[in-house]
């Protein structure tokens, strides 16, 4: 359990440290170091779990099982790579005078704050604390969204704040109902402990839990960005600094989905109706299709990819909703590959925006000719996210399709329609940006593209072959969530 | 022995072709109350051309020069597979009706290229029209051919004719259609009125002549001869497929001679009919030709269907 505690303490220290010294020259590298250490810790934790199964802390405030441990590692990893990218990015922003030292301090300390909130969401065993952490994540990021203080960014931040605040409030009501249902048979303080709830989920009152789940779904669903609760997401992603968009897309959405899935496990335990699953499938499919169409009308490159995030979250929600082992496995895999790919894409997008000096798709041109690495990174990343093999996204989407075809064949055409439309929507916007002659006076920027390469390499690897330890891991998580292993 | 016969009849075919052309011209002149040249006139022309010095345009390429030989030999191949006087022809096995059509296409291919080679407007015009007409005619012809091959269930000409002979006189509706289709195709392919006018030069509607304008001397001779062969080829096809009677089934000298007379008679009659039609009909506009040929195609199709519907065993 020690690594888990360290994992939580370190970012806390980070908040304070950067709040004080966040303006130094090599602050970017320090931030990288912090995240690097957390990654090591998370690996340590993962190793513990891998060897000795689920870990429940002595005071049972924290739980680490195979479901959340891989999300922890993922979070730490993406956090690290994004911080690697953000160091030169933020330096550049400072050079061109978009940011002051004060804001940099805020940025770095909130970066750590956000990481802390993420780890807390993942590790905590208490549904209430999970809610608190989720809200804390909002609060940590809301100031980062408005970091540039432009009217748009402020507007975006405000919407993000209000919508997520209200949404998350619903989740709290859901939690209260859950707690109420729990207190029916267990008056103790730890009635809200997930482990406890999960062990005697059968005793929970099904009707109450269904109502509770509706609130949870609305609440956390707002953060996942499920249509029609998604409206804040593109704004927040497009107006904040790009590293923020990367972690928002790559991590925050995952963790919100994680919260929903945890609750779904309880509901499934309590009731024998699949109402929760159906709700999630409905939301997921709607988000998937609607987002796919949204892609066709984007003028801002970061909005474009935030909609693609909505689309993919929709797909995962759908898959988790189906709940068959196959689907769950696919969804877990998709979580991984999506956050890797998407954060990689946002890295390249950030550089692209810096090259062109704008985020407007109409003005970004000829990236390959200007800075081949960025151009190719963006292109390959888009291919990966659009679900072309041999990248991992294809694998997971393929599995989702397979699962759908087994359980709900008549839904597959819709899914495939969505995939096709999304692919078209992405490429009609991406192609003009990467291809073509370089515009006058467009210069390359100094960029660190290792994160992109690493991420895409991993995604490619996952597409070609899923290493055994990972597949065992997913299988355990699948067993945990859906009760049985895929094949 | 058979092989000998085959060679002999090929040579016979080649040598008779100009005579048929001459006879046809004679009939036409007679019908149009003109004084006819002698029947041997075509031979004289060919001989004269072979001894003249051929003039070749400076813009012409090697293709222009070898084209006549290719055209001639391709046509010769086509005729080697057509039974003229005797039914069992060993060479017929080496190439069936489809190959025959293929070789006619082969000859045409080079004729058209030769027409394009020098780069005159006339050549291009002729080539373009030739390709148009032939590409319309080919399916029609194959329809007719299929009708026959389906009844005889072979594409090998000598087997087909043998089959028809053994069958004796059977009145098949499909054959009537096929016959007409084949006649129309023959008229189009050999460039007779009303599709083309062999007797004209410098008329903007001409087709075949336009392509060979630049040829002279032996090259011209070869091409002319090839077209005469083609005319006779179609004649023989029509005569021997639809009216095979009189062909030599045994290889006795009398039978062969009888067969020779028979085929000459048939061809003569066909020639008269053709001359008659050429006198009676006027040449039609180029874009009516397509209707003419699609009519031929229609006939072929009808022949096919009537075979399938009226005559099929099942």
């Amino acid at each position, binding site marked *: 359990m020690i690594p888990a505690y360290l994992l939580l303490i370190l970012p806390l220290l980070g908040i304070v440290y950067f709040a004080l010294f966040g303006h130094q020259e090599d602050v970017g590298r320090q931030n990288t170091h912090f995240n690097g250490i957390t990654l090591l810790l998370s690996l340590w934790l993962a190793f513990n779990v891998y060897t000795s199964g689920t870990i429940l802390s002595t005071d049972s405030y924290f739980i680490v099982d195979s479901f959340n441990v891989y999300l922890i590692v993922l979070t730490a990893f993406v956090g690290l790579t994004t911080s690697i990218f953000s160091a030169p990015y933020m330096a550049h922003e400072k050079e061109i005078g978009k940011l002051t030292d004060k804001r940099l301090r805020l940025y770095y300390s909130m970066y750590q704050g956000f990481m802390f909130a993420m780890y807390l969401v993942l590790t905590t065993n*208490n549904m*209430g*604390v999970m*809610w*608190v*952490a989720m*809200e*804390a994540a909002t*609060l940590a990021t*809301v*100031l980062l969204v*408005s970091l540039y*203080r*432009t*009217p*748009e960014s*402020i*507007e*975006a*931040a*405000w*919407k993000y*704040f*209000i919508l997520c*605040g*209200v949404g998350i*409030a*619903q989740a*709290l*009501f859901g*939690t*209260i*109902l859950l*707690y*109420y249902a729990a*207190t029916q048979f267990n008056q103790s*303080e*730890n*009635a*809200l402990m997930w482990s406890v709830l999960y062990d005697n989920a059968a005793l929970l*009152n099904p*009707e*109450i839990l269904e*109502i509770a789940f509706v609130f949870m779904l609305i609440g956390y669903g707002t953060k996942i960005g499920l249509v029609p609760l998604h409206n804040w997401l*593109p*704004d927040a992603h*497009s*107006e904040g600094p790009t590293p923020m968009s990367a972690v928002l897309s790559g991590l925050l959405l995952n963790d919100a989905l994680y919260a929903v899935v945890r609750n779904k496990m309880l509901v499934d335990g309590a009731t024998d109706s699949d109402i929760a699953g159906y709700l999630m499938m409905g939301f997921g499919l709607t988000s998937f299709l609607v987002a796919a169409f*949204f892609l066709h*009308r984007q003028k801002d490159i970061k909005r474009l990819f935030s909609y693609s995030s909505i689309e993919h979250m929709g797909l995962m929600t759908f898959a988790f909703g189906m709940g068959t082992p196959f689907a769950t496995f696919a969804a877990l895999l998709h979580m991984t590959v999506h956050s890797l790919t998407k954060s990689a894409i946002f890295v390249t997008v950030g550089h692209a925006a810096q090259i062109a000096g704008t985020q407007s798709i109409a003005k970004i041109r000829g990236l390959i000719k200007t800075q081949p690495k960025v151009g190719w990174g963006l292109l390959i990343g888009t291919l990966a996210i659009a679900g072309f093999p041999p990248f991992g996204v294809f694998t997971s989407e393929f599995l989702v399709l397979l699962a759908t075809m087994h359980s709900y064949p008549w839904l597959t055409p819709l899914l495939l329609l969505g995939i096709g439309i999304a692919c078209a929507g992405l490429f009609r916007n991406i192609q003009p940006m990467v291809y073509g002659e370089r515009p006058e006076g467009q210069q390359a920027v100094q960029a660190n593209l290792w994160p992109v390469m690493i991420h895409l390499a991993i995604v490619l690897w996952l597409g070609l072959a899923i290493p055994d330890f990972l597949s065992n891991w997913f299988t355990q998580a699948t067993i945990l969530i859906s009760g049985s292993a895929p094949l | 022995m058979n092989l000998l016969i085959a060679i002999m009849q090929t040579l016979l075919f080649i040598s008779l072709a100009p005579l048929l052309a001459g006879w046809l011209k004679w009939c036409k002149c007679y019908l149009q109350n003109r004084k006819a040249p002698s029947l041997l006139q075509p031979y004289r022309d060919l001989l004269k051309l072979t001894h003249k010095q051929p003039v070749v345009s400076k813009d012409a390429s090697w293709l222009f020069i070898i084209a006549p030989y290719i055209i001639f030999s391709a046509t010769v191949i086509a005729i080697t597979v057509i039974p003229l006087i005797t039914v069992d022809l060993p060479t017929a096995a080496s190439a069936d009706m489809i190959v025959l059509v293929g070789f006619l296409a082969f000859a045409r291919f080079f004729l058209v290229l030769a027409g394009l080679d020098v780069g005159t407007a006339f050549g291009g015009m002729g080539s373009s029209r030739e390709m148009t007409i032939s590409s319309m005619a080919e399916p029609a012809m194959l329809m007719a051919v299929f009708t026959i091959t389906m009844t005889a269930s072979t594409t090998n000409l000598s087997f087909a004719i043998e089959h028809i002979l053994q069958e004796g006189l059977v009145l098949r509706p499909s054959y009537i259609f096929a016959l007409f289709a084949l006649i129309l195709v023959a008229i189009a392919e050999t460039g007779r009125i009303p599709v083309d006018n062999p007797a004209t030069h410098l008329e903007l509607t001409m087709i075949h002549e336009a392509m060979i304008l630049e040829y002279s001397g032996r090259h011209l001779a070869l091409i002319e001869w090839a077209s005469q062969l083609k005319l006779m080829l179609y004649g023989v096809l029509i005569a021997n497929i639809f009216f095979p009677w009189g062909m030599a089934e045994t290889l006795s000298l009398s039978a062969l001679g009888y067969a020779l007379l028979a085929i000459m008679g048939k061809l003569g009659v066909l020639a008269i009919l053709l001359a008659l039609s050429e006198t009676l009909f006027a040449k039609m506009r180029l874009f009516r030709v397509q209707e003419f040929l699609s009519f031929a195609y229609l006939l072929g199709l009808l022949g096919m269907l009537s075979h399938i519907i009226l005559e099929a065993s099942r």
Partner: protein
Amino acid sequence: MDIENLDHYAQLILSLAALVTLTSFIMLAQGRLLRLVFIFALQGFLLVLATAIAAYSFNNPHLYISAAITMALKVLFIPWMLRRHILKLEMHRDVEALSNKTAIMMGGASLVVFSYYVLHPIMQDASMILLNALSLSLAVILLGMLLMISHHQAIAHVVGFMSIENGLFFAATVSTNGMPMVVELGVAFDVLVAAVLFGIFFLHINSSIDSLDVDKMNRLNEVDQ
């Protein structure tokens, strides 16, 4: 079981719940910001009373703590902050023209009915006080959202948001005698931070669109004009 054979505490709690709902209604119809904030403070106060009584009746000491926190946050700090901003931004005079109040009120009323309709079936086995309290708190939550939808002053939105928090808090208090302490504290902390952030945002928004009218904030739309 009917209200007359409940003990007085329960009756008191119920009537307080009713009053809380009433305050929400008043807020819904309130166009003047200062009064809005005042009523919000009042709602907070009623909440504190209810909590205290609940703490006493269920003799559950830690509810006192949460009551105290609420007192500090929702009755004193937040109203005070909002008021300061209103005065600073000189918005205490302008009245928000609410489009057809009656419809909104009707909607609010139907929301109350709706929340009963939703919670009734699942509360069969529960005590009547619980059913009423929960339904009323749900109603308060929904009314808070309705408030945010109907008003277009940022401050009104904050008030709505906080009244939603009130509803949640009330629900937690009466249904489960308060959440576990950590959660309570966490929620309180979040609310506090949120309040502070709101304060910051008022300044930013005002500086960017020199008003707090959220309808003016629609740069980020995708409807093609």
